[in-house]
Structures are given as C-alpha cells and as structure tokens.
C-alpha cells in the first residue's frame, strides 16, 4: 500500500533526498568493494549513515525507500495568481484559533514538523484547511470541536 503513495516535496526537500541517495549509493559501492571502513571513518560522513556500517540490509532498505520516493514524488509548485487565494500545498496560512493567532505551512508528510510550523497535508487540520480561502471558518470536530478562522494565505519560496 505504502509504495503507491504520492510524496509531495518542496524543491529543497527533493534536493536533500537526492544528496542522501548519492551518499548511500557511494557507500554501497564502497562496501561491495570492501572499502567501507575507510569511507565510514571519514570525518565528513553524517553520523546518520553509521548504522549502515553494521548492517548492509539497512542500507539497501533505505536505498529502496528513497527510490520509491523518487518514483512517486510530486514537486510542490507555486500556484497561479488566481489559485494563490486558495490554500493548497505550500501555502503559509495565518489562522485564528479561539482568539489566538497561529501560523503554519502546509507541506507533504516527508517534510512536515509541526514543532517548526510545518504541518502535513495528511493531518486532520492540514487536510481540512486545503481548498479554503481567507474568511472561511474550518471546523475539525474529532473529538472536541476546534474552529480555525483563516486570516491570511501566502505562498513563499520553499
């Protein structure tokens, strides 16, 4: 099921994944040539790749995972002038929740981190806000009703 899922990415997000893919492919090549320890000891290597030192299958899994992302990736593009009034992927919205202002950018799940103000288009709130305009009030009711009043929509360079 997961393999067919579409991954929405910003240009920057896609670039990051491409860089990781390049490093992993080099690692795999080095491992098969028996050069792994040398490469893995490099100061420049992100510690993220250390777990691959112990388990080649982990490395393979991540490579397959990234290839699946590439296969199903869709770039988030800036909307036309007309569509920029509507909340879509990539929109940064200012909302009012119970008299308090909040701001988030709606983004694909791979780049979402609500603590940083980036919420996923697949989260209940992200999903509910899509397609709405300034002035709309969006209710997300499960299990307590919360009203999100849309105050401002903008699309910034992602």
């Amino acid at each position, binding site marked *: 099921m*997961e393999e067919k899922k579409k991954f929405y990415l910003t240009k920057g997000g896609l670039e990051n994944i491409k860089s990781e893919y390049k490093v992993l492919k080099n690692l795999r090549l080095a491992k098969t040539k028996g050069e792994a320890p040398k490469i893995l000891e490099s100061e420049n290597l992100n510690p993220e790749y250390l777990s691959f030192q112990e388990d080649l299958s982990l490395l393979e899994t991540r490579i397959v995972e990234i290839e699946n992302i590439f296969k199903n990736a869709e770039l988030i593009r800036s909307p036309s002038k007309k569509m920029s009034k509507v909340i879509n992927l990539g929109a940064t919205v200012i909302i009012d929740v119970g008299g308090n202002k909040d701001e988030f950018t709606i983004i694909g799940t791979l780049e979402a981190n609500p603590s940083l103000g980036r*919420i996923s288009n*697949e989260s209940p709130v*992200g999903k509910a806000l899509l397609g709405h305009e300034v002035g709309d009030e*969006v209710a997300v009711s499960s299990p307590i009703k919360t009203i999100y009043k849309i105050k401002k929509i903008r699309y910034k360079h992602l």
Partner: protein
Amino acid sequence: MAVSIQKKPGRSWLLTFQAMENIVNFLAEVNKLKKMKRTGFVWLEVKNPETIAQHCFRVAIMNWILAKKVFPLLDLEKIIKISLSHDLCEVYTGDMTPYWGLLPKDKEKRKEILKDWIRLPKPVKEKRAKEKFKKEKAGLDKLIKPLPSETKKEIMNYWLEYENLDSKEGRFTKQGDKIETLLQAHEYWGSDMDSPLKGWWEEVEDLIDHPVLLDFLNRIEEKFCKRNIKDNQELEFFLKIGKLKQMVRGGWLLRGVENGSTVAEDAFLLAIVIWLLGKRKKLNLEKMLKMALVYEICEVYAEDKTPYEKILPKDKRERKEILDKWPRFLESVKKKRFIEDYKEEKKSLNQLVSGLPENLRKEIICLWDDCKRRRTLEGNFVNQIYWVTMMMQALRYRIKDKSFPITGWVEQMKEFIDDPVALEFLNALYKKYPIG
C-alpha cells in the same frame, strides 16, 4: 463559510479498528506496570522503590548496548523485544521473586532472610519453578489474548525463550535482567555489603556466564566493592540513565498530576507501542525500538520542557486557562523555540553519551536526531507515536480527574499526527477514554 467533512470509515477500516481497540485494551493493562513496585525492594522497605516499567526500560537499553559488543552474534531487535516483554506477565501475577511464599511476617526476620540468596533442595526448587512458570504463563496468556495471533505468538515465544533459557538472546536477556536488578540494589545500598546486596550477588554469580556480562559484572564490582576508579564510562552511562526512573515528566507536574508517570515509564510504554504498531509499517523496527528508548534520555541533563515554557503566568486561574489550549505562535517564533530546545537537548545528549564508544555515541545521537527532526520515515513515525502515547496517558489522567486540561492535547493531535496508523490508534484511544 465552509466546514470540513469527517470521512465515514469503510468496512475494511472497521475491521482494522477492532484490532486497534484490542491493542489499546492490551496497553491499558500494560500501563499498570508503571504503578507496580518491584516486590523485593518493597519487602526491604526501600523508600519509593522502582516500578516494573522503570526496571524494564533500563533492562532494554542496557541489554541492547551490551549485546551490541558481540553483534552480529546476537540479534539486537530480539534482545530489545525480550527485555521489554520479560515481565509483562506480572500485570496479573505481580512480581514473584524467588522468595515468594517463604518469608515470615516479622519484618526483621524477613530482612535477615533476604540478605542471602535463597538455597533450597533441588526437588523443591523444581517444584516451585514449575508453579511459578505455570502462574506466569497463565498471566501472560490472559494479557496477550486480545492481540493479533502473530504478535501473540511472538511475545509468548520470546517469553518462553527467556524463561527456559533456550535461545542465546533469551539467555543473554535473563542474565542482563538480573544484573540490572543488582545495579539498582547497589544504587539503593551503595557499597554496604552487610545489606541485602549479598543475596543479589550470590544470584548473579550462579547465573552469569556470558563473557560480555561477566566483564560488566566485574566493572560493577570494581565501582561498588573495590572502589576502583577505573574507566567505567559505560557503567556510569547506565547509572545516569537510572535517574530517569524517578524523573516525573514536566508536563504532568505542570498540570498538577499526583504521582505522574516518569520518563523511564513513558519510554517503556512507547517502545511497546512501537513494537505493536511498527509491525504494520514497512519500516526498520529495530531502529524504531532503539529510537523509542533513547528519545528522551537527554533529560538526564536537560529540563523536561513543555511548549508552555515562558508563557505561563503566576495566577493559578490564568495558568489553567492557558494550559487548556494548545499554545499558538507565529512560524518564526515556533522555529526559534524549536531551535533553542533542539540545541539544549543535543548539548545534554552529547554530555550524557560523551564517554561511550564513538560508534555507539554517534548512533544514539543520530537516532535521537532522526526522531526529533522527523528526518526519516522511522523518525517521523516514532515522533508521532510518542505524542499519541503521551495523549493516552493524558486521557487516562482525564478519566481520573475531570479537571485535567485536555483541549490543548486534542488540538495538538489534530495538527501533529498524519500517519494513518497513528491516527487509527488515536481514534481507538478516543473511544476507550471518551472526553465527553
């Protein structure tokens, strides 16, 4: 004005929902281990002794790190899972120590007996072991009954491997489990060998034979018995991790919860949830289990911060009002707060792991970073399950105390959770613990 539509679940979703409800019911029972004190320490009148959940947390982290020394000879995922599940049966049987049924009521006489490891004739030992096994197996059977058959089988097999010592991982975990208890006993009684410590030493000396664990046992002896100040960084790390057993989470303290759960207890439950739900994702489960164990260890040094830092007024009523809503900030403020928090936690984590071997140190930092920043699919999933597991605890507090502020939690969930499995879990929680 437009209103969002809540989709009605289809039939297949409903079938999954039943399975998820069963998992929630199972977890509600497992949650009891957070409140169950370990019998031996209770009998010995230790003040506020550790709970079974606290013990299992450190057993899991200790066994993983020690077993890593001989990787790939031992399966680390299996070691972590056996460590997490070895005491699950105690939800129904309680913590049955080898002294069960043999101790007198008189406190002093009891303490005297507990000073030595129990010695019994072989047939008596065998009879008692059989009886204990039967009770515990029945307890575990009852507990795992609602789980999917594959998971049920897995947990039971792991427990049997641990109990019967019939796999190398089962043997290693059992030995590590006893060493963790010995370590805890030393934390209670220090170096005073005229204390119950003697009994625990006798027990481990009968049991331990794995070279890695024998070496670790020597290090405990060096530190506590010989007072030898050698390079003992690994042991120091486990001792520092031990502080998390008693560290009540800031979020519960802030909301006035009495006897709130501790960092170690919540990490234990998170790891169990990851085990059960992670199976449904095509992701690296071993990595996710490790993430669950290390995600909050930085709190040994960093304060357990909540998003309400710096915005809570002194006035009690105003505080309560603010705590009942999810705090709202502009994106730039969120980023600033996240980066501050991230840097502080990373600094604390670096301090905590500084004495560990480089590979392990980097692995732990990387696991934490993945999860904190939701950098990989595994990190994203564990981060979300972390929040939903916290939500489960919050809902339980709300059931006990209707004044527990819950709206902010619900608002947060609507924005933080997008994973279908995490959302299913959340819905099952709302059904089990209605907010009403």
